[in-house]
């Protein structure tokens, strides 16, 4: 942890404040919002992958839960959108808890397999239950309302998402330096050692996994509310891989790496939009090359290179 972790946060907050003045049109504002949403998800996922050392290959499934909760619950059952967000988060958290409890008792990368399975099952369910979810074509999402005030469009959502991002970064910084965070890092470093000093390894892994699932779900709801529409792509295997790529390329265990990874890899599909097959190839190449040449990720590698440790 660098000596001045808040410098980056201040910088990002400043950038976020000034960005709307600089961005030429709403296409870029939309891009910025998507980057910020991904950054928050990746921060949560990084807790799991980078600190607890566990890999989730189905995180898009949790995003889907939040997104479809925000779509289906208000539409079919008349729930208030805010309640739907909470319900989605609780459902995602509960699912994560149920899944992880038996898995984390095992050694090795069984979580990867389990989350892979879960993610695919969620995707298939969403595609099949058309009456609830609109099936492969997706469905519209009623916007967030407070009384008669409706939150829609990129302006309000930009500020909401920007605040969420700043808050998430701040919370992550605090978390990592706290005893909880230290125990997490110890767990990653040597599970046996952490057990022996009294860390309840099972409970920690569980907590981190549930937290990251709930973050993903909430951001899924945010995405759904912002875009106004959800499709099953939001919860598919490729999306899960994209998220893992963002963690990995930015730097496993690096807060600012998560943000950087999210920014870069949200922009990339836009740049490659017309070259569909190439998008897949480039993603794959990035994954491979960064793991081979920069296994620690961009931010930690650059930090070590320039000796700053930021």
């Amino acid at each position, binding site marked *: 942890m660098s000596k001045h972790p808040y410098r980056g946060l201040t910088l990002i907050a400043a950038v976020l404040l000034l960005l709307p003045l600089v961005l030429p049109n709403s296409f870029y504002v939309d891009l910025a919002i998507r980057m910020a949403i991904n950054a928050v998800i990746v921060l949560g996922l990084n807790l799991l*992958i980078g600190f607890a*050392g566990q*890999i989730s290959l189905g995180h898009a499934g949790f995003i889907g839960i939040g997104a479809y909760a925000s779509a289906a619950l208000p539409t079919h059952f008349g729930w208030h959108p805010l309640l739907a967000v909470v319900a989605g988060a609780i459902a995602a958290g509960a699912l994560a808890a149920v*899944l992880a409890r*038996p*898995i984390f008792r*095992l*050694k*090795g*990368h*069984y979580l*990867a*397999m*389990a989350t*892979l*399975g*879960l993610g*695919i*099952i969620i995707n*298939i*369910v969403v595609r*099949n239950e058309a009456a609830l979810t609109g099936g492969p074509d997706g469905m519209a999402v009623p916007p967030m309302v407070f009384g008669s005030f409706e939150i829609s469009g990129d302006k309000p959502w930009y500020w909401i998402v920007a605040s969420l991002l700043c808050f998430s970064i701040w919370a992550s910084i605090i978390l990592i330096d706290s005893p909880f965070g230290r125990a997490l890092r110890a767990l990653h470093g040597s599970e*046996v050692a952490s057990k022996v000093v009294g860390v309840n390894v099972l409970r920690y892994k569980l907590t981190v996994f549930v937290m990251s699932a709930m973050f993903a779900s909430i951001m899924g709801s945010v995405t759904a509310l912002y875009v106004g529409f959800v499709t099953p792509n939001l919860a598919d*295997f490729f999306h899960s*891989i994209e998220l*893992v*790529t963002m963690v*990995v390329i930015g730097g*496993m265990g690096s807060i600012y790496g998560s943000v950087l990874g999210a920014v870069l890899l949200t922009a990339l599909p836009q740049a490659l939009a017309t070259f*569909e*097959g*190439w*998008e*897949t*190839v*480039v*993603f*794959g*190449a*990035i*994954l*491979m*090359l960064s*793991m*081979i040449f920069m*296994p620690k990720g961009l931010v930690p590698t650059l930090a070590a290179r320039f000796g700053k440790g930021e």
Partner: protein
Amino acid sequence: MLAEFLQFLFSGITVGSTYALAALGFTLIYNSSHVINFAQGEFIMLGGMLAVYFTHSGLGLPLSLVLAIVLPAIVGLVMEKVAIEPVKGAEPVTLIIITIGASLVLRGLVQIWLGKGTFSLPAFSGEQPINVLGATLMPQSLWVLGVTAVVVLCLWYFFARTLMGKAMLATSFNRVAAELVGINTDGVLFLSFAMSAALGALGGILITPITLTSYDAGIMLGLKGFVGAVLGGLGSGLGAVVGGLLVGVLEAMGAGYISSSYKDAMPFVLILLILFFRPSGLFGGKATDRV
């Protein structure tokens, strides 16, 4: 009743054979390196797609099939040299991500080269269905089962009776010990990738006349083969075959008797059940760590 059951059983073992070959591929690589090769599915896809490409180019079935097995094997070798060997001592997470990256690259390249269409191969010995106790069995199914059985026997012979095979087994039990007795473990790894790819490609070729192929056919086939390997016990060859077949059969039964729209979900529900109740699989052993 019986006819229906047999029908599901036949289609289950048929596709299960592809899963079994994929599972064997996973097991081979896992044994020599503890890497879970997420690109295995793409080898299956390559087999089918290349076979289609070569036959459409007029090369004739036998030559096309040979090329469709050899080329993926070469791809496997390249992948091992380029992506796996440089990072030998890396964390498991790193290796998993590399193989996922490789699968994306392969899939993307095929998508660019051959497009997003779905293709088929002519059945090897015609399309005349065979009637067995009221159920229909396609001749291609017999090819799939027959060839798979022969391949499994050959592999058994290879591992049990040849020096190279035993060297591979030794590497899987204890890599360091194997190196100390002079086994070229890098060579073993190299070979295991080639074999894995060839097995996968073969499975892909055999199944294409029945289930067709496309640039993204590999994802599900690979993942389901992986479920088969875990079900049988990651690391066990016999487990891989049994596991793969079981996954195919259970999938078919589930689709037939419970719900066909959730057919693709069956193997993944299965893997969750395995991990919850018997993570070492049917034939896998328990491992203890020395501290």
